[in-house]
């Protein structure tokens, strides 16, 4: 018998090719006659385009064309890139054109596309494109942009508010009026980026006879790109195919649609040659979406036992120059604030504001890390003021497992109430505290202090909406040679779909995962698809694969029963064969059944099964499923240099049933490292004119192998009742919980100096600055 695959830490099918240098990333694709594109980008954060002179660039030998807005096809000129998630709260739905028309609104916005025989030549010529700009006032700070006297981010607009909406639960003001304690915190979280190691890129090829495109793109969802291309080029469904090959990390921003894809497609059509564009790292800093600039002004009301009575305040969220994802980020943030705590009254005024900076769209965590930092800062404040242990304050406020399913009282973006499906938050924190020897920390801290060393510990709790709908597609097909293939719209960037989705399908046929091929992110294979982001693929694609494979297995048994003239109940499907339970030697192989299933020319199938040994499923979840976690960070802060080092790190997490524990561990540990960057290192700096100044890895610091902790993992498993396999998402929790825990630990280490923190990241410079005179050794 072949052992069940689900739940086992099987080695990945993806690995061998990637380890031998045989991966196929977008820049590895070479098509005959292919040309190369480079972009002329705005050097100004805000300017009017007065004139573009292409002549010098066009004179460079090997240059084929220079495209500006006026050169784009009519259908591309008459519409902006699509706003994929419209919402009535969006008052000013500004979106960019594929090339800037007459105004540029962030430094790096594409103005012209140069196409040449090589990238070297294209870059030479791009420097010779003369653009006359009339600089306009630029706004780089979202608080300043929100001011009613602020210069407009988009010339002529009345305000810089993209959207504003309230979130209300209960009667918050009344709860505050009778509260024993009210504390106020102003919290700032700074913008960072995904900084996948493979930059963005695409290859567009155009077939003149059919007027059709094939676009290869480093994306997180081929079908959404196809939809955008169809709309922009006004083409039929048959005329665009998007293929996502191996992708070198995504973390959110590769799920967006970008102008460069349109421009190289337009170039490929005009020149009738394939065109490649690979983003370089400088462009990546300028023109790939980022996230996390948020300013919070918050109050928490608690009773004398530190039980939360209410939370209220204002969130100013920076959307950057445009709103490609509408209000997705601030809405997720606002609905993530309550987390695992009972908060009977909650009121938030959410304002999404334009600035002359690259757009913000989801980056690993997608608005949730900010919410968790904010809520956990408030919880630490309560503990400090009431002189209680920080974990104890949290324990007193947890939603109890017997309250599940728990209605938070908030309405989610889809109009449905936020309802936690399952989870045991007190148990999760208790497990994390035990694994991290939280109790023993006081002694460790005291011992260290006696030696002049400063240790701190921090705890954070998260509840994360995962498995967002609407659906993901999966087709399971067994061909007439017996080979099993799974096709899905899910589009991985390292999440191991080849392995995990094969594990789900393999079990239905009693085969090894090597006998199940998984094809992802090719719009020619499945009609619909959403993509891989938002910790949604296990739930959506996993459930669809499970349903489709189950249906195919059932169909195989039905067909075999007819072929063998027996009852289905007498049959079992094992080792790729439908056989008699009573006589395993007697059966029909999947190959034989597949041949039968497609019928034979001239023989009617009327009244029988629909043809083909295949099934397509689109699991459509009723709502999100809620994963949870507790992070405990233990750090040492060098008060002379401000350096923070990790002594221990513990993450307890619950993502429901686990398809492959090795893969889940990898997701959580990797997510923590991203959080380390957001907590301590990553700072995207803009000057007063909204000019980005940290545009390389010397200035923008990613965490290194020497910076990240060894993460001790604790697994809890509360199956979700809302999908057939009991799954929840695992891809983002590591990041969502870690920033708050690390900031809390640093603050705890600096407690002897009275330093409090209300921001992330906290750099060494900032720590030294906050220590001020104390850094010289004069403690209070």
């Amino acid at each position, binding site marked *: 018998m072949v052992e069940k695959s689900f739940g086992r830490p099987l*080695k990945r099918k993806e690995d061998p090719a990637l380890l031998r*240098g045989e991966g196929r990333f977008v820049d590895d694709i070479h098509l005959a006659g292919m040309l190369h594109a480079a972009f002329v980008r705005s050097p100004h954060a805000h300017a009017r385009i007065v004139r573009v002179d292409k002549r010098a660039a066009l004179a460079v030998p090997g240059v084929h064309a220079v495209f500006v807005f006026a050169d784009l096809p009519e259908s591309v000129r008459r519409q902006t890139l699509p706003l994929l998630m419209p919402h009535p709260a969006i008052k000013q739905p500004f979106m960019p054109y594929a090339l800037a028309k007459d105004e540029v609104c962030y430094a790096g916005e594409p103005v012209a596309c140069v196409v040449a025989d090589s990238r*070297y030549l294209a870059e030479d010529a791009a420097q010779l494109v003369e653009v006359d700009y009339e600089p306009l006032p630029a706004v780089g700070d979202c608080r300043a942009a929100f001011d009613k006297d602020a210069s407009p981010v988009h010339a002529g607009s009345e305000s810089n508010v993209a959207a504003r909406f309230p979130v209300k639960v209960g009667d918050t003001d009344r709860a505050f009026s009778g509260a024993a304690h009210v504390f106020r915190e102003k919290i700032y979280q700074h913008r960072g980026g995904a900084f996948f190691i*493979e930059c963005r890129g695409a290859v567009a090829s155009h077939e003149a006879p059919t007027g059709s495109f094939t676009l290869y793109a480093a994306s997180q969802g081929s079908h959404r790109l196809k939809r955008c291309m169809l709309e922009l080029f006004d083409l039929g469904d048959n005329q665009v195919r998007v293929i996502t090959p191996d992708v070198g*990390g995504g973390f959110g921003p590769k799920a967006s649609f970008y102008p460069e894809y349109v421009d190289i497609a337009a170039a490929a059509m005009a020149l009738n040659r394939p065109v490649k564009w690979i983003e370089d790292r400088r462009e990546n800093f300028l023109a790939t979406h980022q996230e996390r600039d948020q300013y919070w002004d918050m109050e928490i009301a608690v009773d004398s036992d530190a039980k939360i009575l209410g939370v209220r305040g204002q969130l100013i969220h920076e959307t950057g120059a445009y709103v490609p994802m509408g209000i997705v980020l601030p809405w997720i943030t606002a609905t993530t604030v309550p987390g695992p705590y009972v908060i009977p009254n909650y009121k938030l005024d959410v304002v999404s504001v334009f600035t002359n900076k690259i757009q913000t769209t989801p980056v690993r965590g997608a608005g949730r890390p900010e919410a968790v930092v904010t809520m956990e800062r408030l919880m630490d404040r309560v503990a400090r003021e009431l002189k209680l242990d920080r974990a104890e304050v949290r324990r007193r406020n947890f939603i109890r497992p017997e309250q599940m399913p728990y209605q938070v009282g908030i309405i989610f973006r889809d109009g449905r109430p936020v309802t936690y499906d399952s989870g045991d938050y007190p148990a999760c924190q208790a497990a994390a505290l035990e694994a991290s020897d939280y109790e023993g920390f006081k002694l460790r801290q005291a011992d260290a202090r006696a030696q002049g060393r400063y240790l701190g510990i921090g705890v954070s709790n998260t509840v994360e909406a995962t498995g967002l709908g609407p659906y993901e597609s999966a087709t399971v097909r067994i061909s007439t040679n017996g080979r099993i293939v799974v096709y899905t719209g899910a589009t991985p960037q390292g999440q191991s779909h080849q392995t995990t989705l094969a594990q789900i399908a393999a079990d239905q046929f009693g085969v090894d995962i090597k006998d199940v091929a998984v094809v992802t992110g090719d719009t020619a294979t499945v009609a619909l698809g959403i993509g891989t982001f938002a910790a949604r693929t296990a739930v959506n694609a996993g459930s669809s694969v499970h349903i489709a494979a189950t249906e195919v297995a059932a169909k195989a048994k039905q067909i075999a029963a007819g072929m063998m003239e027996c009852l289905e109940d007498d049959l079992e499907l094992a080792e790729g064969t439908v056989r008699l339970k009573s006589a395993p030697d007697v059966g029909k192989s999947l190959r034989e059944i597949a041949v039968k299933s497609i019928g034979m020319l001239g023989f009617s199938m009327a009244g029988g099964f629909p043809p083909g040994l295949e099934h397509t499923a689109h699991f459509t979840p009723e709502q999100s499923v809620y994963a949870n976690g507790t992070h405990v960070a233990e750090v040492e802060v060098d008060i002379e240099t401000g350096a923070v080092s990790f002594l221990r790190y513990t993450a307890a997490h619950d993502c429901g049933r686990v398809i492959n524990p090795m893969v889940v*561990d*990898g997701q959580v540990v990797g997510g923590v490292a991203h959080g380390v960057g957001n907590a301590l290192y990553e700072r995207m700096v803009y000057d007063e004119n909204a000019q980005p100044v940290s545009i390389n*890895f*010397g200035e923008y610091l990613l965490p290194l*192998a020497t910076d990240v902790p060894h993460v001790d993992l604790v697994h809890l498993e509360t199956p979700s009742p809302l999908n057939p396999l009991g799954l929840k998402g695992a891809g983002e929790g590591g990041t969502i919980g870690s920033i708050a825990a690390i900031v809390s630990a640093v603050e705890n280490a600096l407690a002897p100096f009275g330093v409090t923190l209300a921001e992330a990241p906290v750099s060494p410079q900032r720590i030294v600055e906050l220590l001020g005179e104390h850094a010289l050794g004069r403690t209070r």
Partner: protein
Amino acid sequence: MADTRTITVTVNGKAHRREVETRMTLADFLRHELELTGTHVGCEHGVCGACTVLIGGASARACLMLAVQCDGESLTTVEGLSAAEQLNPLQQAFHDNHGLQCGFCTPGMLITLTEFLRDYPAPTETEVREVLSGNLCRCTGYQPIVAAALDAAKRIREGA
């Protein structure tokens, strides 16, 4: 007309003679002239390490070198680490320890560690983290890469 030179470079034991532009980087030469696309380009300013190759046995950033600087040199890239269809002990340790997710930084990690484990066959975890600090990974949090390196060192010492 662009300035060109004719160079001879041996890569993974095979000699290649090509006329190249003097300004072409070694990374672009390997990837686009020799079609050895296993060497990846992640930052083009020498920080991320995805393009790391061995030149005369010493690791170097292929994005920071010109192809013409390698005239007469012998190089090893990720494609040269193991025979076709095989994984060497280091690659196998990456596979067994989930040392890669997207796999884009992996070639650079493997090359860096190939040199390191050759010179330091019994490293500590701290030493492994130190040598890996020149290679960026955004997926794994480095922990499984460190585990893979220590596992590989053990396998190599035991004659795997």
